């Protein structure tokens, strides 16, 4: 029937190519969400909407996979959060037609500060991320829903997230997509322009910028990560391809140093069959 070979056979090895087919990626991810939620016997997900592109894409995918009525969006501003973030998140909720709720986490976070004494901005940022986690997991129990993760591959590899905070979820549809790829997906899903265009920010304090904090742009670091991680190109070769030795060093160091954030806790083996080593069942065990 078809003699078409699609030009080059589409190999699995990417050689650093970040381009995706957003339509087919959407097909895979919506089926993933439906299957993973369905096999737990549930029908719903709950997720935090920050007003940024990652959670917007996750919400769009979930609304397509499960129907908007089964996606609960929770807006959780702190008193220093940018009002634009809340506005953008509200616009997305209107577009999707999902149920939503706003929980101001200021009183939770401030109560913690009061009880524990002064904490610096980094620790306060972690407390905020964990306060949001508490809200999301509480709502998931109330609604019989799964918490949908919204961490992307760039953040996960660089360790740019809070353990037991924004890194906590039951299923994550976007954790294997770099920020650059999420932008392509956001365009395809028609995420509101204001969300697509804003500079990426964890929004833990006013005017925070991911790219300033990381010290490089997502475009740049994604190209490097795709080479180092996906294509397994060596250090010398990526430098030959134009990346600075300092950047390669720093990114490699960050990946290694944050490995613990991508793993369950280490359990000391003192029995014949230990969780993680020789008690080996998939997460989707018998479901």
């Amino acid at each position, binding site marked *: 029937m078809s003699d078409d070979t699609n030009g080059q056979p589409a190999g699995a090895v990417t050689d650093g190519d970040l381009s995706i087919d957003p339509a087919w990626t959407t097909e895979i991810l919506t089926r993933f969400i439906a299957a993973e939620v369905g096999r737990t016997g549930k029908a719903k997900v709950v997720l935090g909407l920050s007003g940024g592109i990652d959670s917007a894409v996750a919400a769009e995918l979930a609304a397509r996979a499960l129907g908007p009525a089964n996606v609960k969006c929770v807006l959780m501003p702190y008193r220093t959060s940018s009002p634009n973030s809340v506005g953008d998140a509200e616009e997305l909720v209107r577009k999707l037609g999902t149920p939503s709720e706003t929980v101001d986490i200021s009183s939770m976070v401030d109560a913690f500060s009061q009880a524990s004494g002064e904490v610096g901005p980094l620790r306060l940022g972690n407390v905020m991320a964990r306060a949001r986690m508490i809200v999301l997991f509480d709502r998931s129990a109330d609604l019989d829903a799964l918490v949908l993760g919204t961490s992307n591959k760039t953040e996960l590899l660089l360790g740019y997230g809070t353990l037991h905070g924004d890194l906590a979820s039951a299923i994550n549809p976007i954790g294997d997509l770099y920020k650059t790829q999420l932008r392509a997906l956001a365009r395809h899903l028609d995420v509101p322009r204001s969300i697509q265009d804003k500079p990426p920010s964890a929004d833990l304090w006013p005017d925070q910028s991911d790219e300033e904090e990381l010290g490089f742009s997502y475009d740049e670091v994604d190209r490097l990560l795709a080479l180092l991680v996906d294509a397994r190109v060596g250090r010398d070769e990526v430098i030959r391809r134009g990346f600075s030795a300092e950047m390669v060093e720093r990114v490699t160091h960050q990946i290694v140093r944050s490995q613990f954030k991508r793993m369950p806790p280490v359990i000391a083996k003192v029995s014949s069959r230990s969780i993680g080593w020789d008690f080996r069942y998939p997460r*989707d065990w018998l479901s």
Partner: protein
Amino acid sequence: MKDWRVALAQIAPRLGDVDANLEVHLARTRSALEDNADLVVFPELSLTGYHLADQVPEVALTRDSEPLRRLQHESREIDIVVGFVEDAPGHRFYNAAAYLSQGRVVHVHRKLYLPTYGMFQEGREFAAGEVLRAFETDRGPTGMLICEDLWHPTSAWLLSQQGAEVVVAIGNGPTRGTRPGSGITSIGVWRELLRTNAQFQTSFFVFVNRVGCEDGLSFGGGSMVADPFGRITAELPALDEALVVADLPAEALRRARATYPLLRDTNLELVHRELERLRRRRYELPGDPGHSEEEDIE
């Protein structure tokens, strides 16, 4: 071979749930029968799902187990290829495919090449098969391969040399992302594999892949048939369950083999001689030119 009508049953097995999967097999087999198919093909590990890990011994079946007996019973009316974990004598667990026909097990193929790299851990879970045989069916000589087996060109070659005219390859091929223009990349790779194998062996190749998700792996589907000219003559959708019936006309096989007498021209003596030389070298056997004479004397 005679004309074959083959039903490709692209399903999403439930992980570790043999009973539920058996019901799906029975229902799909009935549909295939209604479509007047001679054979219905299910994917690799179709009775158990893929990512079994420590569940392997828990879902393993002997050839006379109840689920396989029920499918054998169905095979009185239509041939069936089913994927399962075989609990073989000595309690070796194989990733296996059974060809059922006329109420009995005609042949069992045990996966030869167990991928144990990247995301795959099969070498840890299963024993590797060591035998590859074509076999006779009502409609002609046939061979079976399981997923990674097809990535080793010698597998399809050996089956063809043994006379197979139809090769049924069953798989659990996961997707590995997408590219603009080519969609799900893994499906394009399987298409090329099937086309080239069919063309080089001038045989029909039937590939049935599974769909569904397990622990974040999405299986691609895109099951297909390639004819002895290396043309894709049937193709199922990506990602979704489907049952499609495809015709394998004997006339095409005859014409392809008359036009491209590749099998006729195979030089078995050359292959045997060179293989023997390689074997001696690999295993340091007497007769290897790199082998010292002193050792030969022993």
